[in-house]
């Protein structure tokens, strides 16, 4: 038996031994992996196709800019207001956390904090919604602000981790340069490190915004009673918002309701896609700028 494992040097260079079997296995693995990748892309394409084909007929000027029953303008505006407020709260905190992780925390402090951020990021958003519901809504009434708080909790770990990644890319040599000039650390951070990493930080924030725009569960618990006819900018009152309205429209069970739900979904997904793709392009550009 052992003889057959040592190929005869003069034999032709065709597969011998168990090489044929290994080649078949290798090919099967390749086909399986490729198939899974195609499936993932396929699902995305099918989802987007469905949303576009069913939502597009609903899109019109009135639909986008007028209130109920003609359109969903208040909901779109409200979503932007809620997300803007939540990002205004989450971005500074997230960037400061990232600065703490990269500039001040030793490896002993950074590890647990990173784990904490990842755990918050993994929390089901319905649980965050329930938490904020108990904190701010129960016995007090729904408000856009409560929704914004819940969304901010979702955004903080995304911004912190994303910003941290870019801050780590800022070359050590730049920090050494500013240290060697006898300038205090916080000034170096503020005027050299942060500006250098700004492109990436903006990207991380945009990605977090894209995620927050589509979060439904927290809003269903915190900002679910509103007047769909009224454009509102008052964050401390009820604000119409898109995710909850999509939910309500599809609960109606009417033809018009479904069509409008798809239409509003299309608006949201276009925003998310544009934001994500734009952010990624921006990130790629600033990474290239850093590494050059």
């Amino acid at each position: 038996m052992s003889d057959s494992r040592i190929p005869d040097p003069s034999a032709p260079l065709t597969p011998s031994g168990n090489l044929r079997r290994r080649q078949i296995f290798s090919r099967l693995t390749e086909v399986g992996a490729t198939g899974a990748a195609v499936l993932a892309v396929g699902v995305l394409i099918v989802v987007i196709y469905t949303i576009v084909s069913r939502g597009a007929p609903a899109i019109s000027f009135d639909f986008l800019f007028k209130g109920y029953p003609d359109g969903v303008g208040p909901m779109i505006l409200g979503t932007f207001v809620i997300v803007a407020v939540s990002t205004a709260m989450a971005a500074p905190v997230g960037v400061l956390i990232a600065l703490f992780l990269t500039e001040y925390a030793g490896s002993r402090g950074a590890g647990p904090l990173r784990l904490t951020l990842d755990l918050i990021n993994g929390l089901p958003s319905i649980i965050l919604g329930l938490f904020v519901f108990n904190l701010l809504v129960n016995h007090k009434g729904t408000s856009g602000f409560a929704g914004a708080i819940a969304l901010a909790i979702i955004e903080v770990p995304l911004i912190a981790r994303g910003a941290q990644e870019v801050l780590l890319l800022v070359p050590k040599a730049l920090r050494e340069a500013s240290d060697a000039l006898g300038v205090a650390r916080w000034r170096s951070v503020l005027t050299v490190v942060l500006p250098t990493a700004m492109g990436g930080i903006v990207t991380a924030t945009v990605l977090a915004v894209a995620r927050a725009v589509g979060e439904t569960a927290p809003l269903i618990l915190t900002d679910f009673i509103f007047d769909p006819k009224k454009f509102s900018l008052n964050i401390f009152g009820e604000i119409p918002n898109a995710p909850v309205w999509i939910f309500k429209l599809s609960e109606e069970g009417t033809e018009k309701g479904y069509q409008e739900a798809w239409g509003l979904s299309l608006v949201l997904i276009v925003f998310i896609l544009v934001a994500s793709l734009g952010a990624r392009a921006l990130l790629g550009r600033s990474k290239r700028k850093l590494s050059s």
Partner: protein
Amino acid sequence: MTGSLDYTSEQDPMTSAPTNGQGENQPVPSRVRIQTGPPAPVTVPETGVTGPTISESFQPPPQLVFDAQGIGIFYGAKQALTDVTLGIRHGQITALIGPSGCGKTTFLRSLNRMNDTVPGFRIEGQILYHGHDVYGSNVDRVEVRRRIGMVFQKPNPFPKSIYDNIAWAPRNLGLKKGLDERVETALRGAALWDEVKDRLKDSALGLSGGQQQRLCIARAIAIEPDVLLLDEPASALDPIATAAIEDLMHSLKGRFTIVIVTHNMQQAARVADRTAFFSLETSGEKPTGTLIEVDETAKIFAEPRDPRTRDYVSGRFG
């Protein structure tokens, strides 16, 4: 330099006590007063000289900027440097040469406490800077670096404009008056002004490697430090850029005390007044870097006292 440049403000009364233990009480006649450097703190009353008569050949004791005594440096359990005693003289260029891993850069970086943030860093012995312990308990390392500037091996300009690279530190240190003038002075000092005066607003990253390194030197001298530490400043540059940096060092000599680490022995021979030779020695169980010999550069290269120095400078090392 402009009239606002005043090195004496950084000087300290303690400088008046020479730290090398020689001639502490010897009055120095005014005609042999130290010419280089700041208005000599070692002045004596012009009249009423009552000390012993001093011969014509009297040499004033060298004024030490750094006086390192018995320096040992550890990174965790690993000893990088053992028992280095070395004085750096005012207004001169001192070169540190030696093979890789002998602790030259480690020693250089310990002079302005750039090693502090390295995990496990520990230092033995004492480094006196104008008589003050650099690692003293009430010493702020930001202040140390304010006075002791550093230029690194790889040019590391900020991703900002040429002007902002120079102006950044003065702005942050509150030296906002006459900023344009200060930037120009620094760029002229680094022999870069003529090449960049028409594009001060352009990004510094668009400069060539040699220009970037001179920009880094300009950035360092813009805050008028007392000492410049250069860590292999030309090792990443081509010969022409290297020559420019060496010329620059000659022109900066006297205004600044310069310590340069270099792998290039010819460079040390060309630019340095004094040269210190470091090497790896196996005295204990593991080899660590140590100082073998320090002397006038000409002596080190022509007639070194130690055979190890001779082997190294004649290229027979290893």
